């Protein structure tokens, strides 16, 4: 069986032109995908390396159970919890995330997604100054100046350059890369920097200063220093000139800028730079989102609650205060007493203090792939891989929603994230309803 227009659910580039050949429910050939994407397809269809039975751990023993038992146990943990954390939600579909919000609202917990340790500062900057942006097709059709700052797409988003930004021929850029200029700003000469027309090396941690210098020069200031953040005065003037004189510029930024010292202040400054540039020409800015649906996760949370991440329902309504209600902080402070971790592996990636607390509390791990977090979970439920074994919606880094497809059957008895979260939600609802009735009954007796 040959499938076309398949969507690759690995990174935020969300390529939708993949061709896949399937035989006996195994993927045997993949066209157009990058190496990272292709390996995900192959890995998913190689079920020897996946666990396919739910697990409950009790007193250090691991017991394989049925899905119903696992769901029962999971809902018990959540219904009993005083302040549970529901974290992950970036490498899964919007449909699953939606039930995740219902569930968190029901149990009065905290819902956070991986943006909290990724582009969270970018979102905070967004809320400070805004975000002049566009879709990737606009870049393809119009852009003549492309800047990547603190981002190495050749490794992290391998097809970004060829599908949307530098290489493709666009409506107003018929000659493709010959009609465009590529500039890379980074602390080291990355592979992307090697193919760029110009590489600007910024001193580590000095991104804020460089952005400020650019804004200063752009707004008519005269630079007296020879070097700012390790970049010479001439280079700064030249860069400002290029930015001002292009007809459509775009600044893509990644973790190199977001997690540089200053964090959201740096992004705030970078967005302000782009806003200033719009007085002279057309200029846009875009986050290079990592997980394929981290954008969708922010979107679903925002339309359901008003806030994009770190939403706390413990007062009965949504509240948002990153730093107080974000996943790492509530774990480090030891505030949460149970957790549900889905499509994510915080045990491998969170700070030590946060992981220490997570390992002290009962938690549920839901993931297509058995990971370090699943290894210590009270309940582990395996699920189907979205975009390969089940359908759903995902949002590309520029906010374009795409329906991801199902091309092979999941292992027997394995359901999608959406179905598993919905089952837990319904089971938890039953339990909570019982309790409300019990409480009401007690009151009558009193």
């Amino acid at each position, binding site marked *: 069986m040959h499938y*076309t*227009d398949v969507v690759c659910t690995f990174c935020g580039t969300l390529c*939708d*032109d993949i061709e896949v050949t399937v035989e006996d429910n195994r993927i045997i050939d993949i066209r157009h995908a990058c190496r990272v994407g292709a390996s995900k397809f192959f890995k998913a269809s190689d079920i020897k390396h996946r666990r396919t039975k739910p697990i409950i751990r009790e007193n250090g023993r691991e017991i394989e159970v049925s899905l119903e038992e696992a769901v029962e146990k999971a809902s018990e943990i959540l219904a009993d919890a005083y302040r549970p954390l529901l974290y992950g939600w970036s490498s899964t579909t919007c449909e699953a995330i*939606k039930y995740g919000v*219902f569930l968190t*609202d*029901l149990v009065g917990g905290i819902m956070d997604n991986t943006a909290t340790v990724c582009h969270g500062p970018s979102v905070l900057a*967004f*809320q*400070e*100054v*805004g*975000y*002049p*942006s*566009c*879709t990737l*097709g*606009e870049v*393809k*059709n*119009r852009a003549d100046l492309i800047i990547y700052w603190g981002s190495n797409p050749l490794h992290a988003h391998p097809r970004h350059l060829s*599908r*949307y930004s530098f290489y493709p*021929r*666009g*409506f*107003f850029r018929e000659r493709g890369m010959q009609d465009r200029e590529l500039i890379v700003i980074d602390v080291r000469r990355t592979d992307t920097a090697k193919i760029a027309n110009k590489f600007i090396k910024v001193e580590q941690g000095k991104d804020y200063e460089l952005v400020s210098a650019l804004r200063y020069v752009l707004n008519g200031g005269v630079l007296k220093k020879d070097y700012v953040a390790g970049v010479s005065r001439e280079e700064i003037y030249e860069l400002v000139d290029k930015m001002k004189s292009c*007809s*459509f510029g775009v600044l893509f930024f990644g973790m190199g800028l977001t997690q540089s010292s200053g964090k959201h202040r740096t992004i705030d400054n970078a967005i302000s730079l782009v*806003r200033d540039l*719009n007085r002279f*020409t*057309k200029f*846009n800015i875009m986050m290079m989102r990592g997980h394929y649906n981290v954008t969708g996760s*922010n*979107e679903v949370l*925002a*339309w*359901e*609650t*008003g*806030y*994009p991440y770190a939403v706390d*329902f413990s007062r*009965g*309504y*949504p509240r*948002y205060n990153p730093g107080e209600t974000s996943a790492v902080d509530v774990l480090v402070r030891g505030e949460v007493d149970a957790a549900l971790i889905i499509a994510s592996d915080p045990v491998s990636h969170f700070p030590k203090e946060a992981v220490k607390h997570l390992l002290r509390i009962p938690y549920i791990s839901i993931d297509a792939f058995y990971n370090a977090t699943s290894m210590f979970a009270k309940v582990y439920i395996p699920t189907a891989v979205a975009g390969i074994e089940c359908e759903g*919606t995902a*949002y590309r880094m520029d*906010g*374009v*929603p*795409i*329906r991801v497809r199902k091309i092979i059957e999941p292992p027997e008895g394995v359901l999608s994230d959406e179905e598993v979260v919905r089952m837990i939600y319904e089971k938890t*609802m039953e339990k909570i*309803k019982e309790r*409300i009735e019990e409480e009401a009954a007690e009151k009558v007796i009193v």
Partner: protein
Amino acid sequence: MKIILKNGYVYDPINNINGEVMDIFIKDGKIVNEFREKDAKVIDCKGKVVMPGAIDIHSHIAGGKVNTGRILRPEDHRRFVIARKFKNGKFFRSGAGFSVPSTRITGYLYAKMGYTMAFTPALPPLMARHTHEELSSIPIIDKGALTLMGNNWFVMKYLKAGEIEKCAAFAAWLLKAVKGYAIKVVNPGGGEAWGWGKNVTSLEDRVPYFDITPKEIIEGLMKVNEMLKLPHSEHLHTINLGRVGNYETTIKTMKLARGLENRDRHVLQITHAQFHSYGGESWKSFESKAYEVAKAVNKMKNVAIDVGFVTLDPTTTMTADGPMEYYLSSLTHLKWTNKDIELETAPGVTPYNYSPKSAVSSVQWAVGLELALLVEDPWRVMLTTDHPNGGPFIRYPRIIAWLMSRKYREDFMKNMNKAVEKRAIISSLDREYDLYEIAIITRASQARALGLKEKGHLGVGADADVAVYDINPEELNTAEYEKIERAFSNAYLTIKSGEIVVKEGEVVNEFYGKTYYVDVEVEEELMQEVERDLDYYFKRYYSVNLANYPVSLDYLTNPTKIERKIERVKVIK
């Protein structure tokens, strides 16, 4: 479920019923002929007003830019929250947001006011799936989405080449692909120019590269709209929104509708006309030109307006008019987001604080009311705030009270900037709307504009969407305007599809309403030609494949199709 609403004062303008005491019979989600009281739920509505469920034709409640507005404004959500609750064995979700409420509570808040339907007016085709995902998470009310076409490359290309049949076939394809309801045009040509940081400022300006004028786009799409026999008219947000002295452009725009006719409705809707009725030379001499615009509307019988009232609240502005949002943010220096969408449109979002102390805001407040009071025929006026641009929709009851009570307007003006008395004529207007006229501008005219025969009235066969308000028309005193505002804020009863959803202002039941979309079939050969162009453009210029573009019906709650079959597309000259 069978329900009888007994002895209410019924206001049903489509059936010419003006405050008669009548019983309304409801069965299986429809209004039906009289039946016996046995095994029906009888509700006494004596001394109360019974109206069809209200309809909002233009309200940004779902979609990419609405959500961008939510993400952009955490400070806004702290002003207004609704906590989760259990009631009648059901779990009602929590939510937050004053000017951009989250989706679940959007449904609750509309139902609470007796609204049973709302259309989101700006669906960018590429982002259609997003809009539908949000619409499908709004409970209770029926909904639909108007589709942005005014800056679409295909539309501009076909119209420039004089291939209006192809343009029509493309519009039909697009509406079906994205499950849209009508043709929406926003700043025609300006959105494309914004791709280069430019804009258009007159109807004769040329769009860069495409070499077409806003006038040609407006006229072309108006004809396409009639060629496809669409239920709604062209829904137009014309150029120069919010600019000083823009009323002349607005009047010129209306004149483009000359010569076109439709038996059932107007052919052009000037949307949020309030933002297009400004005079003056600069912000210092900013003044109301509502009188001139209203005069033009009175003359042009085939044009209607929805008002876009300003309610003087801090709000979040959002529109597919990207250059306008940039301009506004450069005046206010507040945060600004923009999202240009390839080949299609260019939305933007920025917060705005309408302060009664500001000269401009207070005149804007007057402009909206003046328009509503000066246009003689209420059938061509629709009550909207262009939510959330002029103010949040939860202020509709206040606007109703302003329209019904001169005293309320006078009292409200006392705390306003004095400009409202000098540069607007609101203080000289005596007209007060009666309940029948209110029923027209909030229900009947909107249903008629949308071409929905089963909505906006209480005749036999209509959908059983009913609102009951605790107002006694016999004892109505417009000087007691707080009572009017309170009654319209908290419906005594809202019935949606024959089920009680609101009782005395409290939401007691929840389910999902219908989602309307149109499906126009045109002749095959024509469609094939268009499909060839689609193939070519999608392969080269879009960033998604054609196969991944259309939205499936899975995304719509209770999808409801309005079908048209056009044997041969006839060109309208």
